[in-house]
């Protein structure tokens, strides 16, 4: 029950955060120098065109009214109409949201266990070959922006050197994002290589700290098998501190997919966001900003709750 209370409290905090973000997003877009109607319609548009545009998108209302309407729409799942084609945003972004979420989810599903395994193994084999090799390679990978990693992978595995995997993903309209499994290999590999070095390094550090801890030494001195020492005594304690980093990386992926999506032509929000920014399509930009914020808030919420669940000291404090 304690945890429920905490979740509710954190949720409330998340809602407040989102509210503040929404305010910031709205104020920033209000502060843009150009009149969105003019920007979208262009200089050929007549006064009537502009007036009609402003009326259609509620730009003739007061700023407060615009904000409350927008916020109300967001809350009720209707983020409004796209400036560029007058279509409800969810109509053409729905599938893209799903696709991006899938990419992030699949990327997390691969990279997080992998990071845990690599980090834990490197910690166990500290200063040995695997650890050193991993340390060097993860440093190199961490130093490379993901578009470089992605481009290298493409050259290596899709276009110039070997042609093993497709260089681009093709998710056809109406199909599920996993329909092009071959095509997903490189984007997921890129995301994995972007995230795993960070997370695995944190896992390694956390694991080393735990392996050096008194209670792990004590577990060995109790005669427990290495397997028990590792799985029962070390890992559960090492995993808590990594949750925050994992959450950060999931949130980072929300931004990282923009690059990866462009590289591999994956039909997600990244491409939509790029188009929207280019076209001053404010409703779409605002909606996607809120969506990415939501991912930040949710992943951090999950990390907090996860940390608490695996940390009895925190968990018991709640009840």
């Amino acid at each position, binding site marked *: 029950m304690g945890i429920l209370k905490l979740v509710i409290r954190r949720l409330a905090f998340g809602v407040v955060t989102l509210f503040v973000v929404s305010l910031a997003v709205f104020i920033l877009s209000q502060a843009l120098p150009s009149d969105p109607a003019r920007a979208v319609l262009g200089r050929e548009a007549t006064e009537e065109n502009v007036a009609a545009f402003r009326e259609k998108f509620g730009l003739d209302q007061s700023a407060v009214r615009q904000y409350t309407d927008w916020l109300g729409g967001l809350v009720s799942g209707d983020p409004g109409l796209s400036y560029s084609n007058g279509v409800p945003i969810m109509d053409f972004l729905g599938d893209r949201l799903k696709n991006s979420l899938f990419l992030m989810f699949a990327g997390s599903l691969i990279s997080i266990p992998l990071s845990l395994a690599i980090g834990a193994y490197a910690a166990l084999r500290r200063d040995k070959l695997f650890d050193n090799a991993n340390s060097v390679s993860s440093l190199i990978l961490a130093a490379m922006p993901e578009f470089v990693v992605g481009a290298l992978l493409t050259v290596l595995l899709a276009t110039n050197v070997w042609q093993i995997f497709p260089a681009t993903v093709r998710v056809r309209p109406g199909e599920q994002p996993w329909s092009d499994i071959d095509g997903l290999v490189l984007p997921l590999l890129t995301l994995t290589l972007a995230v795993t070095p960070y997370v695995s390094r944190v896992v390694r550090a956390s694991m080393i700290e735990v392996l050096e801890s008194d209670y792990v030494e*004590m577990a*060995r*001195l109790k005669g*427990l098998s290495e397997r028990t020492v590792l799985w*029962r005594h070390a890992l*559960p304690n090492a995993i808590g501190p990594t949750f925050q980093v994992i959450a950060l990386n999931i949130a980072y992926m929300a931004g990282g997919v923009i690059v990866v999506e462009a590289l591999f032509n994956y039909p997600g929000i990244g491409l939509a966001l790029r188009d929207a920014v280019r076209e001053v399509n404010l409703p779409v930009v605002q909606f996607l900003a809120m969506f990415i914020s939501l991912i930040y808030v949710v992943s951090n919420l999950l990390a907090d709750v996860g940390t608490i669940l695996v940390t009895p000291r925190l968990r018991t404090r709640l009840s």
Partner: protein
Amino acid sequence: MSAELGTLGDLGDRDDRDGGVTLSIRSLRIDVVDTGHDIVDEVDLEIAAGEVLGLVGESGSGKTTVGLAVLGHARRGVRIASGTIEIGGRSVLDRSPRELRRLRGGQVSYVPQDPSTSLNPALRIRTQILEVLEHHGFGTTAADREARVLQVMEEVALPNTPDFLRRYPHQLSGGQQQRIGLAMAFACRPSVIVLDEPTTGLDVSTQAHVLTTVRDLCRAHGVAALYVTHDLAVVANLADRVAVMYAGRIVEQGTTRTIFESPQHPYTRHLTAAAPDISGTEAVVGLAGRAPAPGKRPVGCSFAPRCELATDECRESFPPVTSPAHAHQVRCFHAGGLAHLQRPAPVTLLRQGRDEVPALSIRHVDAAYTGHRVVHDVSFDVARGECVALVGESGSGKTTLSRSVGGLHREWTGEILLNGEAMARSARNRPTAQRLSIQYVFQNPYSSLHPRRTVGDSVARPLRVAGVSAAEATKAVHEMLERVSLTAAYAGRYPDQLSGGERQRVAIARALVSRPSVLVCDEVTSALDVLVQAAVVELLVGLQHDLGLSMLFVTHNLPLVRSLAQQVVVLADGRVVESGPTERVLGEPEQDYTRRLLADTPSISAASAG
């Protein structure tokens, strides 16, 4: 079939639990893998079943390393280089990892120093006890093991209700945690147990309970115990025999009585003279210098650089073991040469001029910590030139109170007068003169000095803040460094180049440089080894005497009080339980609480007399 029989059946090679030698260590050498420098060398120890051997030494002497070696364990970067360790006649060091695991926790178990970090925070205590039994195949059924968990909980005097067993370590008090450590250690009925300073950090009453438990369990089950500690008083009360380690070697070994009554090695002599004793009447004596670290140890006797008796012979070769009496070994060319150390008489300043305005006056002070009231209506005075000891167990509110006096804690009401003038709650709101006139020395000398600032800068800082010129400040700094038995050369050093004792001296010098009238010392010796502690106490006594300093000395260490304070204020649960002259309060306590506290405090003289 009882669980007891089942145990015997399961753990085959524990044949000589009654009589004979259970643990035998011969010529043990443990060194650093990378450099080959010895951590311990030439260690010979034997412990019989049912016997408790106290292994005494300062931090860094290698006593924990020896303790861990008994379980065939060496920490990262360290290896057991040579020698033998046998338990029940079977070698420990020759075992395969698998055999070692069978040994550890089963036949030989370990009680760690700090239970708060040695218990897995993520596992319930039942799991942590039960897993030892499971891994060592205790009993024949799960029910046997469950029964043993309940039994061992009883043995360590903890509740064995399901509810209690479901707790996590952090839900237990420090004493309870250490009992869980004991329960895990005794669960499989080991024949050898290594206890590594298991009572460090515990309140005296808790410590007394834990020690009683240890003693009873070892006696009752015929366990050979190696009790590693730096606390002579504990050893005096618990151990049958004592081995004294210095810089990786055992320098003296004998029965507890022999060691305390007629120590032959100069180092042992110094150790006993430096240990404050609750029932003793003598002041503590410190010793300058520090033990050499691995790799910096001299060819000859490693104590020679600090030894009054050292001769060229000592510096050329390490003395061999001699046996001045039955069951008493010592490694010194001049064994017995240091008969008695000159102990200064305890300071017996009488409380002078009661009518004078007290240097520090605490009037009806209530203090809270994040909203919780932890100090209730406390009033007492510190007269000029007087040292008042504020004693109490952890949680008694003594630190909160002292921090309130020092202006470091704001959540208090009432009046604190310095030389008759009321002080603002926070140091920030106090006038400079007042701020300089009351100085605070912190518990931990490792964190209280700015690591990037030279000693000279740190000490000069209060003066510079007060606007004293650089030249004058430097002069004062040098003077003050001399005063705390450091030289002016220390002014250019950084804290990490200093030992703990030296840092605490620097911290004291920093406090004194502004010529305060009141010094608040918050557990200033608790992080220090006994010899260093004695030296710091000596210093404070001298300062009090020479400078007419008034002191509020906060401590949980009752024996120390006798060497230092004229007045004692006993605090419990934030209230003054008893106060008065040291002799009276410690000699004829009026309150049950004080009496119990004194009774729980281990006493060297009482033990060796008894």
